[in-house]
C-alpha cells in the first residue's frame, strides 16, 4: 500500500512527502510517508524498523538476568519500568515475594522515571510546536532526577537497577533527602510549565480539537497510556492490575474525555503532579530490610506461558514469556505501547495540516527504539 502511494505519480491534487527517517519531528528514525493535498494531510503511512535490533531474538539466547539490560534499550526513557516488567514476570512465575523495601523503592524510582520521561516529552513537544525554550527548561529539571538515579543506581538514562528478586544494590543514603528536595523544587517549577506553554493562547489553538480520537476508537486501536487516557479510556494498569505498591497508595487515574492533543498533553502534566503525590506517600516510609531476595545463580522458569502488564510512561507494556523450563526463555514478546499507539496516527491526522501531524505525533510521545525493538 505504501508502495502504491509512493509510486503514484503526484497529481495536482495530492503529492507525497517523506517525513523521516532524518527529520527533526520524528524524534528518531521513524518515517512517515505523507500524502498531502496542499497542506492538508490525506494519508499517513508510518514506516518503522530503522533500528530494529532483534531484541526478542537476542533474549532467547540469554538468561533471565541478562535480559534486563536489553530492556533498558527499548524504551530508554522509562528504562526502569521496562526492567521491572521483566523482573515482575520472572518473580510471579517463580512465586517469589520480594521484600517490602524493594516494592517501595521500585515504585518510587518508577514514578521518578515517569516524571523524567514526561519532562523530556514536554521538552520535545514544545519544540515540535516551535517553542524552543521549553526544551531547555524541561531538560534542566530532568537533570535533577537523573542525578538522583545516578547516585543510587550508577546509571543516568539506563539504569539496569532491577534484577529478578530485587535490586542490584541498595539505595544511596542520600536518596530520600534528594527525592524530597527534588519534589519541593519541582512543585515550584511545574506551574512555570503551565504559564509558558499550557495557558498560552497559541498553544491552545494549536492543540485544541487537533488529532481527535474517540474513546471507542481508542480502545479499538489499543491506544494506552496518557494517549488513551486523553480520550477517556481508563487504561492505567496501575489501577486495573496493580503491581508493586500501587494498590496501597492513593492516587487518581488522570482522565480527560476531549480526546484531542491538548487532552493528551494535560494528562501528562497532571500525571507529573500525581507521580509526585505517590512518591511523597512512600518516600518517608521505606521499610528497612533486604534489597533483594537470594536467588539461584541460574534461574529456570517452569514450563508455561507468563504474562505481565505494567504501565510504562507511554502506555501499557506487556511482557509475554514462553518458557520450556530451560535457563533461557523460549520466546519473549514485548508489547510496545508505542507501536500500538502509532497505529492510530492515520485516523487521527486525517484532514489535518502538516503542522498538526507534527503535534499529533508529538502528543503520542513515540520512542522509536521501543517500537522497533
Amino acid at each position, binding site marked *: *500500500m*505504501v*508502495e502504491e502511494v509512493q509510486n503514484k505519480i503526484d497529481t495536482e491534487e495530492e503529492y507525497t512527502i517523506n517525513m523521516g527517517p532524518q527529520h527533526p519531528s520524528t524524534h528518531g528514525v521513524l518515517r512517515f510517508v505523507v500524502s498531502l493535498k496542499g497542506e492538508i494531510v490525506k494519508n499517513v503511512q508510518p514506516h*518503522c*524498523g530503522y533500528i*530494529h535490533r*532483534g531484541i*526478542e*531474538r537476542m533474549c532467547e*539466547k540469554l538468561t533471565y538476568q541478562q535480559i534486563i539490560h536489553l530492556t533498558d534499550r527499548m524504551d530508554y526513557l522509562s528504562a526502569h519500568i521496562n526492567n521491572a516488567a521483566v523482573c515482575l514476570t520472572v518473580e*510471579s*512465575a517463580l512465586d517469589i515475594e520480594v521484600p517490602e523495601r524493594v516494592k517501595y523503592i521500585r515504585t518510587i524510582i518508577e514514578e521518578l522515571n515517569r516524571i523524567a520521561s514526561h519532562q523530556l516529552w514536554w521538552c520535545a513537544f514544545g519544540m515540535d510546536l516551535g517553542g524552543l525554550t521549553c526544551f531547555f527548561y524541561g531538560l534542566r529539571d530532568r537533570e535533577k532526577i537523573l542525578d538522583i538515579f545516578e547516585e543510587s543506581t550508577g546509571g543516568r538514562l539506563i539504569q539496569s537497577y532491577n534484577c529478578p528478586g530485587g535490586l542490584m544494590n541498595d539505595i544511596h543514603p542520600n536518596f530520600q533527602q534528594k527525592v524530597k528536595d527534588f519534589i519541593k523544587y519541582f512543585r515550584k517549577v511545574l506551574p512555570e510549565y503551565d504559564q509558558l506553554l499550557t495557558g498560552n493562547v497559541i498553544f491552545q489553538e494549536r492543540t485544541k480539537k487537533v488529532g481527535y480520537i474517540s474513546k471507542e*476508537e481508542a*480502545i*479499538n*486501536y*489499543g491506544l494506552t497510556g496518557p494517549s488513551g487516557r486523553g480520550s477517556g*479510556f*481508563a*487504561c492505567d494498569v496501575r489501577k*486495573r*492490575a496493580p503491581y508493586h505498591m500501587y494498590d496501597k497508595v492513593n492516587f487518581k487515574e488522570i482522565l480527560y474525555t476531549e480526546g484531542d492533543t491538548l487532552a493528551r498533553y494535560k494528562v501528562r502534566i497532571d500525571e507529573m503532579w500525581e507521580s509526585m503525590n505517590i512518591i511523597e506517600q512512600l518516600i518517608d516510609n521505606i521499610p528497612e530490610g533486604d534489597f533483594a531476595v537470594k536467588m539461584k545463580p541460574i534461574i529456570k522458569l517452569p514450563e*508455561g*506461558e*507468563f*504474562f*505481565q*502488564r505494567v504501565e510504562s510512561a507511554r502506555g*501499557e507494556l*506487556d511482557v*509475554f514469556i*514462553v518458557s520450556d523450563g530451560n535457563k533461557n526463555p*523460549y*520466546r519473549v*514478546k514485548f*508489547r510496545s505501547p508505542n*507501536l*500500538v499507539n*502509532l*497505529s492510530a496516527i492515520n485516523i487521527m491526522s486525517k484532514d489535518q495540516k502538516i503542522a498538526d501531524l507534527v503535534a499529533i505525533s508529538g502528543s503520542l510521545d513515540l520512542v522509536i527504539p521501543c517500537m*522497533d525493538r
Partner: protein
Amino acid sequence: MTNEQLKEKVLSLYSGAQIAEGKQLLTVTVPAEELYSLAKKLKESDDTAFDYLMCLSGVDYPTNLGVFYHITSTKYNHSIALKTTTADRVNAEVDSVYSLWKSAEYHEREVYDLLGIKFTNHPDLRRMFLDDDWVGHPLRKDYSDPLNIIER
C-alpha cells in the same frame, strides 16, 4: 467474571476449546479455523465484552506455529488468553482479527514479518520492520543469518 465463570462461558460458546489454567490467565486453545468466530463471540457477548486486545504474539514451537491473543475487557476488567496453533510451517494461515480489534493490524504485521504467519483478511499485510525483499522470518528457531547473528 472470575476465571471459573469465564471457563464455563468459553465452553458454552465453543465446546471444543481446551482450557488450561495458567498463573494469571486462562489460556484457551482453539483450532485456527475456530479462533475468529470464538473471538467475535467473546467480544460481542454482553457479559464478556472483551473489547481491548492487549497483546498478540506469535510463538515458534518445535512442531507448529502458535499465536497468542491476550484480550481484556475494559468494562469488567477480566482477561483471557486465546491460543491457536497451525502445523503448516510453510503456509501458516490464521484468520485476522483486525475487524474485531484494529490494534491487531500492527501486531499481525509484526507476527507476519518475524514469524511468517499469514493472516487472512488482513487489510495490509506486509513486513513491518524488515525490508520487503528480506528472505526468511527471523524469530523462527530455524532462521540463521551468519552475518548478523553470532552464535555463542
